[in-house]
């Protein structure tokens, strides 16, 4: 009987060999296929297995943190400031992330190569790996002031403020907003349902209006036209007299370019500073036509438009528009027609003028520290572009101070501080209320803050027409005070 027993033994060995080969195929050869299968929810549990780092503002206010939890998930993400910083922190959902949560993900979850050494040490000491903490350049007071003021207007809009000397972003608010906590839960059905709901809303709360989309800048763009005009000939200054007809005749078209409300602008021959104070359309349309598309476009590019930019979230591209006829250049030179700007780009123009003509690269991440508090990375301010000469910057600064002191932007005045600014009221489609703009910086002689405020054509309060001076300037004033008074 031993013969068949031995053959049975061989058969048993063959069965075990088959099992072993199969296990090798599963766990060595095809392992990746099963590991990465979308239906393998382990990847989703792993997202919550690491204690992500904190996101803070100004080194103290906690915007996002991971708290240890009981149950299926080890750590849950929470956002103590909720809506206030939503577009900055972003959310951390079961399958995706946005804003800082996305762009600094490798630092926050500790998987970055910069943390390799720390992970190695953790492996030996048995400490669980913890992500690095990310501190933002945001000034919490300015952020809160901007949020409250914009919210009070009851409209959609955006406020972005930066330190003109370094490029550090001090405040960035976009309304309407959302609660990132709602999009960071672990219940997929609930999170994705809420996301779809938000994504479908006409008011687009998920959008960071400062960097994700562009708007016609309206009269705030006249600052850029003035800059190009002054740069073109260094003998020109605020007192240079320019043509200011009631209606500017545009070539090859029967339509003319009027002033706001069809009003006259002085006596038809005005100084540049007067044209800016009163925000006349005709002189700047005429200047733009005289300079031509190329010079206007070149000046805008010098302020940074058209260059790729990440703060670290990538910023939509601002542009002067495609080259068309002279009539188009005239309209674009007063911030209408084809010209499209992000609020951040407008803030960069204000900041460039404030910083003697040099635009600093805007940035949000101030400092990255490991779990023990040792710095891994610190922001290093860098020049983004040389926009204008310091002489031109000086002339523009004085003119913008005059706009606030004597012109359309008197509601941005701060007692005891020279504020430089420019209002804008951008027409959108016919019959639609316009977008209200304001760009400014202060104090004019030693700028600490430069900012742009945009209030969208308001769906909220029907009938109450927004203007740059009436709606946007008071918001800017509050934000500037928050930074200057501390």
């Amino acid at each position, binding site marked *: *009987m031993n013969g068949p027993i031995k053959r049975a033994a061989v058969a048993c060995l063959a069965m075990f060999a088959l099992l072993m080969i199969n296990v090798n195929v599963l766990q060595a050869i095809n*392992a990746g296929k099963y590991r990465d299968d979308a239906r393998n929810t382990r990847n989703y549990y792993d997202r919550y297995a690491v204690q992500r780092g904190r996101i803070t503002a100004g080194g103290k206010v906690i915007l996002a943190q991971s708290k240890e939890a009981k149950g299926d998930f080890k750590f849950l993400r929470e956002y103590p400031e909720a809506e206030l910083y939503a577009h900055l922190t972003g959310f951390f959902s079961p399958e995706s992330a946005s804003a800082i949560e996305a762009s600094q993900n490798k630092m926050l979850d500790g998987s970055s190569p910069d943390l390799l050494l720390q992970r190695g040490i953790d492996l030996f000491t048995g400490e669980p790996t913890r992500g690095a903490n990310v501190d933002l350049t945001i000034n919490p007071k300015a952020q809160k002031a901007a949020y409250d003021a914009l919210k009070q207007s009851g409209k959609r809009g955006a406020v972005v403020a930066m330190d003109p000397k370094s490029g550090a972003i001090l405040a960035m608010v976009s309304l309407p907003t959302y609660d990132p906590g709602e999009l960071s839960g672990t219940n997929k059905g609930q999170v994705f349902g809420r996301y779809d709901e938000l994504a479908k809303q006409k008011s687009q709360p998920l959008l960071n209006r400062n960097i994700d989309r562009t708007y016609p800048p309206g009269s705030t763009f006249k600052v850029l036209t003035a800059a190009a005009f002054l740069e073109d000939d260094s003998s020109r200054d605020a007192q240079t007299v320019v043509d200011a007809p009631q209606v500017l005749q545009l070539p090859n078209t029967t339509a003319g370019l009027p002033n706001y409300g069809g009003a006259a602008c002085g006596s038809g021959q005005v100084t540049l500073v007067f044209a800016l104070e009163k925000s006349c359309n005709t002189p700047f349309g005429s200047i733009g036509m005289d300079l031509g598309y190329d010079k206007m476009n070149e000046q805008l590019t010098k302020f940074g438009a058209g260059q790729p930019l990440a703060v670290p979230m990538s910023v939509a591209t601002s542009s002067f528009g495609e080259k068309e006829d002279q009539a188009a250049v005239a309209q674009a030179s007063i911030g209408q027609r084809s010209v499209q700007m992000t609020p951040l780009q407008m803030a960069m123009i204000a900041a460039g003028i404030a910083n003697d003509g040099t635009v600093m690269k805007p940035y949000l991440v101030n400092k990255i520290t490991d779990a023990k508090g040792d710095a891994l990375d610190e922001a290093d301010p860098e020049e983004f572009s040389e926009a204008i000469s310091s002489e031109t910057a000086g002339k523009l600064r004085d003119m913008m101070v005059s706009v606030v002191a004597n012109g359309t932007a008197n509601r941005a005045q701060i007692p005891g501080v020279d504020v430089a600014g420019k209002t804008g009221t951008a027409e959108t489609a016919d019959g639609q209320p316009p977008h209200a703009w304001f760009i400014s910086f202060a104090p004019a002689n030693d700028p600490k803050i430069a900012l742009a405020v945009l209030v969208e054509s308001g769906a909220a309060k029907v009938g109450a027409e927004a203007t740059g001076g009436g709606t946007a300037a008071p918001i800017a004033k509050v934000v500037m005070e928050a930074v200057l008074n501390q």
Partner: protein
Amino acid sequence: MSEVAEASVTMPAKRRVAQLAMLAFAVAIVMGAYANVGLAMGGAIPSGMLTYGLGLGALMLAAYLVLARFAPWADPLILPLVTLINGLGLVMIFRLSESPSTLPSAKLASPSTQLMWTFVGILMFSLTLIFLRDHRALQRLTYTAGAVGLILLISPLTPFLGQEINGARIWVGIPGVGQIQPAEFAKLALVVFFAGYLVAKRDVLALAGRRLLFIDLPRARDLGPVLITWGVSLGVLVMQKDLGSSLLLFGTFVAMLYIATQRSSWVIIGILLFVGGAIMAGMLFNHVQQRFNVYLNPGDPVLFDAVGGSAQLMQGLFAMGSGGILGTGLGQGHPELIPLAFSDFIFPATGEELGLTGLMALLMMYALLVERGLRTSVAARDPFSKLLAGGLSFLLAWQVFIIVGGVTNLIPLTGLVTPFMSQGGSALLSNWILIALLVRMSDAARKPPPQAIQNEGMTQVFQR
């Protein structure tokens, strides 16, 4: 078949010290694994580790002492191997119960019950060794064993007592005790029956009938027993929807038939009958058909979402894929995501945390255990022992092949417990008795034969 015993037979060593050392090593590995789970999941050595570890250690020491006293010549490898497999099963069940998840795989895992059943299993192991001094006594109980096996097998069909769980009617509820799976005990009784029956009938069954292409077919009138077993297996499949036990029983019978008769024609007839039965079952029953579809296309999204579809199997494969070569480490994966991770799917759950490395070691341990059993069968001195040892060893191998092959999608999935690992008292008890029988037979096989009295006239002592 018989050989003249030689006076200078090399005496197999008892190797009791080596056995004790291996046993201690097995218990040490299990205790290390407990500590590992606790450190990974709670950051501390689990408070119950001493209870579990020392409990297991004390149980194994007791089993060892019984073995040393009542079966001193037994194969030294069998007990340590079973200890390690049983211990790793306990650790996995402990690990699943420690999971904070609210999934059933975490909630239903109960390490304390399993430890209790391990204790009862070792008690049964010891009692079998103490009271069954000569396993050949079982040969006299051939037909009793057959009747008991059959009754146990059909007992879940009795009204009121039988219970259907997870679609299979294989449970009997005993008031005050809980549920038992009688098929687990039936398989032991039936193997005893097969061994006794085949020893008696093997000469007849081995008679050649017609010759067809190189194969000697058995005589048609001898087909009776194989047809009856086939019928019973199909009955189990149809009435209890228990694919696993059906396949286990029939396969073991065919293997024993082959060992008894040396006729490969029986294997071929067995395979043909099985394939025929399977095709018939596939056409008649939806659940068999669906199992087969799942086997062919486990990743299919429609089957994945279907009720009773491939989701369970795929969860096991996801676990193994995520574990990779080295595994996540005990306590650091998500085996609780696999439905039934504490019972049928304990193998992929182990694969996630111990990786390919761990599974290869585990399969190697099973293979060693089976081969030690078959070695006992080769060394046994009488046909009944040879058939019983061979049958029990094959049963073990075949069971591991069916369930592990099923959960790794090597063959269509049929539910069976993974011997010594899956949570469940019936299986643990019956498998410990199986091991006791193997130990008893290996003791008998390795014991030095009584000294032959040479040169006493023409008398010769024959050894069978």
